[in-house]
C-alpha cells in the first residue's frame, strides 16, 4: 500500500484508485474523483478546472478519450498539473476506521488511516495456521491458544505434537494409550502389544521350541510348560538324532577341506607368475631374503612343529642349491606337494596358514608390479597432455602473430591496402551457396593516425549472372576522436591483374565520398553496418575467364583499395 502523503507515483505498483473511506463529515463533492467516485488520491487538476485522482485521469486519457470526463473539453497529459493544495486538505479530512463495522470507533485524519489499520486491533487477519478462519487482530492470540483447529497440542502420554483436529486420530495411534490385548484381554500400552504377543501373552498359540528338530505340536503359551514336562523323553530323542547328524556332517566337512586345499598348489604353476618371480629376484645371493616366500614358510613350519626334521631338511636343501631366480617357481611347486601331504597328516589349520602366507607374498610382488605399471602409464599420459598443451600454445602464438602482422600491415599501409583472397574458388563456392553471406577484409588505416576501413565482398546475382560485390566500410578506429566526420575523400577499388602481360588490365573504379551517406558517418559499432561501393563490381565470369587479364593466380584474388582523405572533387559516382 502507498504511504499516506506520498506523491511519487513511481512507487505505485498496483492500480490505485481514490481513498475508499467513510469521511466524517461526508466527503465534499469537490474532493471526490468523478472517475472512481472516491476521495481524491494524488489529485491533479485539469486546465478546465476539474480534479481527478492522478491514476484515474491518466487511465481515462489512455483508455478512453482525450477529453475531460466532466465537460468533454479536449485534454492531454500536458494539461494536467498536481493539485498539492487539494491533496493537503484531503489528507487532513477525518475518516472512520474501515473496521468501524467490526467495532473500531476511531475517527482519524486520512493521513494516518493506513498506519492505523495496520495496527488496528479490529483488523481482520487470516489465521497463520491456515485453518481458514479470519479473526480480529485482538482475538488472534486467543484463537491460536484455544480455538484454532490446527493449533499444535502435545500428547499428555507420549509427548508427541499433533494438531488439535487430529487428536482423535492421534489417540488411535499413540504408543502410550493402554489397550486391551485382543487375545487375553490384559491391558497393555499400544507400543508394547507386539512384545506382549511374542513374549508374554498366555493365550497366544506357540509352537514347541523343538519344532526345528521335529516336534510340531502347537499349544497356547499357558500350556507350553505342561508340554515341555510331558514330552521330555521325545525331545531328548530328537536331540540325540540331531547330534548324530552333526557328527556325520563334521567328518564330511573335514574331508572336503582337504580336497579344497590342493588347488592352492596349482596357483604358482602359472608361467607368468613364475617369470615375475624370477624378475623380482635380481640378486641371486639374496634369493632367500626375509621377504622370500620359502623363508617365511620355513619359519611358520618350524613354529608349528608340524613336520619331522628329515622332511624339513629335504625341503630346504632342495630350495637352497637352486640359487637362481628361475628355479624358484619349481621350488614352490615342491613345497606345495609337501603341504598337501601335511594336510592329510596334520589337519587343516596349520596347512592353510602356511599356504596363505606364500600366497600373500606373491600377492605383494604382483601388486608392486601393477603399481609400477600404473605409475608408468600415468606419467606417460601426463607427458602427452603437456605435449598437446604446448602444441596448442604454439598454434595460439602463431594465430596471434598472424593477426598482429595483418593489423600492423593495415595500420601502416597509408590508405593503400591489398586484400589477398587465397583459395578463391572455395571462397566463391561458399559465398554462392549461402545467400546473404558476406566476407570482410582485415581492417586498414588511411594513414597511421587516419581513418579505419575494411573491404567487404559478397556475391550477387542479376539477370542470371553472378557478380562480385565490393564495398568499403568505416570502422571504429583509435583516431576517431580527433578526425573529421563524416569522412570525405576519394576511394579507388581495383581488382588487380597479376598476369605477366603488359600493360596491366586492373579493373578499377573510383568513387567520391558523400557526406549525407550513413556509410561515411562515424561508426557507432565496431564496423559501420552501411557500406559504400558496388553490388556488381565485376561479373564473376570475367574474373574466371581471364581473356582480359590474369586476375586469379594460384587460386588467389588481389583487391586493392586506395583511400585518400580530402575534399571530394567534382566527379562523383553514384553507387549503393
Amino acid at each position, binding site marked *: 500500500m502507498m504511504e499516506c502523503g506520498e506523491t511519487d507515483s513511481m512507487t505505485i505498483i498496483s*492500480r490505485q*484508485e481514490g481513498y*475508499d473511506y467513510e469521511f466524517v463529515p461526508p466527503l465534499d463533492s469537490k474532493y471526490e474523483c*468523478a*472517475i*472512481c*467516485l*472516491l476521495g481524491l488520491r494524488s489529485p491533479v487538476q485539469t486546465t478546465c478546472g*476539474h480534479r481527478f485522482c492522478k491514476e*484515474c485521469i491518466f*487511465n*481515462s486519457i489512455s*483508455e*478512453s*478519450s482525450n*477529453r*475531460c*470526463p*466532466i*465537460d*468533454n473539453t479536449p485534454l492531454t497529459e500536458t494539461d494536467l498539473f498536481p493539485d498539492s493544495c487539494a491533496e493537503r486538505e484531503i489528507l487532513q479530512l477525518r475518516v472512520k476506521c474501515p473496521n468501524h463495522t467490526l467495532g473500531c470507533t476511531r475517527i482519524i485524519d486520512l493521513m494516518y488511516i493506513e498506519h492505523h489499520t495496520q495496527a488496528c486491533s479490529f483488523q481482520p487477519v487470516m489465521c497463520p495456521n491456515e485453518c481458514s478462519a479470519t479473526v480480529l487482530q485482538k482475538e488472534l492470540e486467543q484463537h491460536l491458544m484455544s480455538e484454532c483447529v490446527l493449533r499444535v497440542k502435545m500428547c499428555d502420554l507420549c509427548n508427541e505434537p499433533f494438531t488439535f483436529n487430529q487428536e482423535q486420530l492421534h489417540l488411535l495411534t499413540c504408543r502410550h494409550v493402554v489397550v486391551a490385548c485382543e487375545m487375553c484381554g490384559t491391558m497393555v500400552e499400544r507400543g508394547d502389544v507386539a512384545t506382549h504377543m511374542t513374549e508374554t501373552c498366555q493365550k497366544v498359540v506357540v509352537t514347541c521350541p523343538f519344532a526345528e528338530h521335529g516336534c510340531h505340536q502347537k499349544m497356547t503359551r499357558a500350556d507350553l510348560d505342561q508340554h515341555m514336562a510331558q514330552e521330555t523323553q521325545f525331545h531328548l530323542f530328537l536331540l540325540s538324532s540331531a547330534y548324530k547328524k552333526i557328527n556325520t556332517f563334521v567328518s564330511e566337512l573335514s574331508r572336503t577341506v582337504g580336497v579344497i586345499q590342493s588347488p592352492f598348489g596349482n596357483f604358482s604353476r602359472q608361467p607368468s607368475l613364475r617369470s615375475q618371480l624370477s624378475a623380482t629376484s635380481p640378486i641371486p645371493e639374496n634369493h632367500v631374503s626375509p621377504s622370500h616366500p620359502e623363508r617365511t614358510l620355513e619359519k611358520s613350519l618350524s613354529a608349528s612343529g608340524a613336520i619331522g626334521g628329515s622332511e624339513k631338511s629335504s625341503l630346504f636343501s632342495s630350495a637352497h642349491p637352486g640359487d637362481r631366480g628361475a628355479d624358484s617357481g619349481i621350488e614352490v611347486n615342491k613345497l606345495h606337494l609337501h603341504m598337501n601331504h601335511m594336510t592329510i597328516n596334520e589337519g587343516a589349520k596349520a596347512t592353510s596358514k602356511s599356504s596363505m602366507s606364500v600366497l600373500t607374498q606373491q600377492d605383494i610382488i604382483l601388486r608392486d608390479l601393477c603399481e609400477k605399471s600404473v605409475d608408468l602409464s600415468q606419467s606417460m599420459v601426463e607427458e602427452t597432455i603437456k605435449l598437446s598443451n604446448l602444441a596448442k600454445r604454439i598454434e595460439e602464438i602463431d594465430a596471434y602473430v598472424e593477426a598482429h602482422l595483418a593489423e600492423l600491415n593495415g595500420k601502416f599501409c597509408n590508405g593503400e591496402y591489398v586484400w589477398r583472397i587465397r583459395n578463391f574458388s572455395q571462397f566463391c563456392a561458399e559465398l554462392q551457396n549461402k545467400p546473404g553471406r558476406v566476407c570482410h577484409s582485415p581492417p586498414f588505416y588511411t594513414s597511421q593516425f587516419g581513418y579505419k576501413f575494411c573491404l567487404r565482398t559478397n556475391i550477387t546475382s542479376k539477370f542470371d549472372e553472378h557478380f562480385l560485390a565490393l564495398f568499403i566500410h568505416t570502422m571504429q578506429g583509435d583516431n576517431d576522436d580527433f578526425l573529421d566526420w563524416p569522412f570525405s575523400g576519394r576511394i579507388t577499388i581495383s581488382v588487380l591483374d597479376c598476369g605477366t602481360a603488359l600493360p596491366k588490365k586492373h579493373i578499377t573504379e573510383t568513387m567520391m565520398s558523400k557526406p549525407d551517406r550513413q556509410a561515411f558517418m562515424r561508426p557507432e559499432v565496431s564496423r559501420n553496418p552501411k557500406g559504400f561501393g558496388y553490388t556488381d563490381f565485376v561479373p564473376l565470369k570475367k574474373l574466371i575467364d581471364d581473356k582480359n587479364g590474369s586476375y586469379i593466380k594460384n587460386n588467389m584474388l588481389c583487391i586493392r583499395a586506395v583511400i585518400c582523405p580530402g575534399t571530394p572533387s567534382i566527379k562523383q559516382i553514384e553507387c549503393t
Partner: protein
Amino acid sequence: MANIAIQRIKREFKEVIKSDEAQKCAINVELVGDDYRELRGEIAGPPDTPYEGATFHLEIKVPETYPFNPPKVKFVTKIWHPNISSVTGAICLDILKDQWAAAMTLRTVLLSLQALLAAAEPDDPQDAVVARQFKENHALFLQTAQYWSHVHAGVPKGNSEFSNKVRCLMDMGVGEHQALVALSSCNWDMDRAIEQLFS
C-alpha cells in the same frame, strides 16, 4: 470485470438508491445476477407528457472498460417515442454514444433518459415513423404515445377508440402488439393498417 468498474458501479448503485429521485420513485435500479455486469433500471414517465404515470424498464449492461466507456442501455418496456426504437428499444442519445463522459453515473443517465421522454429530438430520430408522426400529426402522436403507455407501461387511462381498432384487427387473427404497431404507424387508419399487415 476490472476493479474500478465494479467499485464504481457499486457506489453508483448506492447513489441511485439513496437519491431524492429514488425516494420519489422517479428512478430506480435493481441488480440482475450478482456481478454488477447487468442491471435493470426503472424510470417514471415525466408529468405533463403522454408518458405520465407510466413505469419504463431499462436493460443496462456495464462494459469491462466502464467508466471510460458508456453503459449499454435500452428500453425493455415498449414505448412510442421518436428517439427510441418501437421495435428494439434502442435509444438514440448522444451521452450514451460519443458524448459519454466518465463523470456521468447511473443516476445521471437515468435522469437524462427521463428528460429525453419530456423533450424528444425528432430531428435526430431513432424511429423515423414515430418522428414523422411527431412532426406531422403531433396530436395523434400524443394520443398514440399515451395509448402505448397504457398498454405496456401500466397507465390506467386507456383509449376506447384505439382499443376497438386493435381488437378488430385481433379478431382477424393478428397478434395484439403487431396490431398496435401497424395501427400506430399508419396513423390509426384501419384500411392502411390492414393493407400493411396482409399485403
